[in-house]
């Protein structure tokens, strides 16, 4: 019984982290139809940059949350740069988008190796969240529970952005019907830069928030990108609800699948992904078939 409870709680916390990782990808893909294969690299860079701030530059250690904020901004700016100077030249050219995003991921991976070396970096759990919550004999790390809260806050913030602001309305219009959106006068190219920066920032944020659990190491980008893809496929792109529900579902599949079906551990995510693609290609909540 306690075994299942532990797995359930972890499914939700892992799902929270996946939401932070994949919401950016879903946004970018939903609006701009760009499969951003640099997403894993942005996650990893956010983690590295954040870790560097936390450990301290110029001898002064920085508060974790401040470091996370700065890292997020740094990666968001990187995203804006990538969109403005590279992706903007390739509207609709899917192959070139794949080439450039993969090329950038090579650069990011080698750059990280050059700057931070091959050793993994640990990020200490932020102050105040190092302890445990106890429930009878069960123990849950406070920080993991905090991630659920963070994910929920970000989800609500994104929802408010999409539903209650003009920017959000423009994004939704762009997702639903980009041609009409242009006709109506929405400055789609500016919108794209903002959205890509937002998506990149979310990835970087997810990286540093996840760092106390996952640590930061070369190869983190390749480990996390397939997870983002799986969530977006399952939940449907361009849908916030889809990202959220998809993340939680993948959290459950990941935890229970690996624990109960260890023989299938390698396939536990890709088999469901395949099934969804075959049976319901738009995902659970997607608005259009990819």
């Amino acid at each position, binding site marked *: 019984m306690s*075994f299942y409870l532990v*797995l359930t709680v972890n499914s939700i916390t892992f799902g929270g982290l996946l939401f932070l990782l994949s919401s950016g990808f879903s946004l970018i893909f939903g609006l701009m139809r760009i499969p951003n294969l640099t997403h894993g690299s942005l996650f990893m860079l956010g983690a590295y940059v954040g870790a560097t701030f936390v450990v301290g530059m110029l001898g002064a250690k920085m508060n974790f949350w401040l470091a996370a904020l700065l890292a997020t901004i740094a990666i968001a700016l990187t995203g804006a740069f990538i969109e403005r100077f590279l992706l903007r030249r390739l509207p609709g050219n899917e192959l070139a988008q794949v080439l450039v995003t993969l090329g950038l991921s090579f650069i990011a991976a080698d750059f990280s190796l050059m700057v931070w070396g091959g050793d993994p970096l640990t990020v200490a759990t932020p102050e105040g969240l190092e302890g445990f919550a106890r429930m009878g004999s069960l123990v849950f790390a406070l920080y993991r529970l905090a991630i659920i809260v963070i994910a929920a806050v970000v989800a609500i913030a994104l929802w408010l952005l999409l539903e209650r602001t003009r920017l959000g309305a423009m994004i939704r219009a762009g997702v639903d019907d980009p041609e009409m959106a242009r006709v109506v006068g929405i400055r789609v190219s500016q919108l794209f830069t903002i959205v890509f920066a937002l998506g990149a920032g979310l990835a970087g944020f997810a990286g540093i928030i996840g760092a106390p659990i996952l640590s930061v190491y070369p190869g983190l980008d390749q480990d996390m990108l397939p997870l983002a893809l799986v969530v977006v496929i399952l939940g449907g792109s361009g849908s916030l609800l889809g990202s959220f529900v998809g993340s939680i579902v993948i959290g459950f599949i990941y935890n229970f699948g690996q624990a109960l079906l260890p023989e299938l*551990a390698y396939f536990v995510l890709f088999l469901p992904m395949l099934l969804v693609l075959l049976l319901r290609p738009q995902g659970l909540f997607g608005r259009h078939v990819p």
Partner: protein
Amino acid sequence: MTRKISRRTMLAGTAAGAAAAAFKFPTPAIAQNAPFKLGLLTVKTGPLAQGGIQMEQGIVTYLKEKNYTFAGRKVDFISADSGGNPAGAKTKAQELIERDKVDSIVGPLAAFELLAITDYIAQQKTPLLSLAAAEDMTQRRPNPYFVRASATSSQAMHPMADYAAKELKLKNVITISEDFAFGYEQMGGFQQTFEDNGGKILKKLWPPIVTPDYTPYLAQIADCDGVCQGFAGSNPLRFMKQYVAAGLKYPVVSGETGGDDALMHSFGDEAIGMYSCCPYTLDLQNESNKRFVAAMQKDYKVDPGFYAAGLYINGMVVEAALEKTGGKSDNKEELIKAMRSVSLTDTPRGPVKFDHFGNVIGNFYVRKVEKANGKMMNKTVKTYENVSQFWNYDEKKFLSQPVYSRDYPPLKS
């Protein structure tokens, strides 16, 4: 509309192709007193780069100490990056042997890289010294041109199991390691010796190599009195952090990569109390280790670990072999024979000699992680001397049983 191949496209294609192919290739230097060419096959890009970079640091440290001169002969050192995959390892091995004409190769890093090139190395008769742990390289499918000065996957786990049973008095252990050959071989070795000493393995958990979150496996660790982990690379870090975050408190024992000295600076308090058994230990107090550690700290500002020490020692073995052959390296059979007959007493890991398969017989150190000056450090608590790859088992009997695998030894419970 069918697209025709215009002559322009054809020309462009040819031009691009010819341009790409017509690089200026370096011609090998034709020196008079021909230097000894030592090749390094390592990984400097991608996820395995951590160990690969340390390997290069280790061998370069030794070469610098010796002023790039072995037995009076100048050493030409060529480093090659395999990219961490078998095809790359084969290509780079070919580059070192066919283009650069190396006399001997140190490396590669990973077992699967070694397995990809073993036939080629034997064919080319190039002596190879690697720290890749694949057991059968010196057991059931031995390569006569191979020397291993570090350990087989299980060589460090036999003494670890002995210590766990006899000193830590553990009786029921759950093992967890990555789902690949290095993991199987380590845990198999641990299991065999642990069970021979009256212990019992309750469960064997095998998370895939790419597992960001170990919680589904950690949730299965209960009702035991110890955990044996065999993670490698940067995984031990993540594992221990998540282990402690899951509220688990059982003592943890691990192998040569699980508690690597080079990884200590990344660990936090979660590692305190973890035991590991390794052929190298940072706090070994002998002359060559003191020199080695000082040089690594000066040049690279790092504490060396298993990978750097392994390659440093490989350098020592190559030099010792050259001293035996009087500096000659043209006769490959003689060179490999000399290497295998090397017996050193003062190396960063202590005494080193080889069995008839080319695998090391040496000391293995059990260490415990302690906190000193705010950092994590390994403190050596026991030294097992003269440990061979067969531990205390009869060699023939050991070789007649199958290689340690996911299902061997079978779980008794």
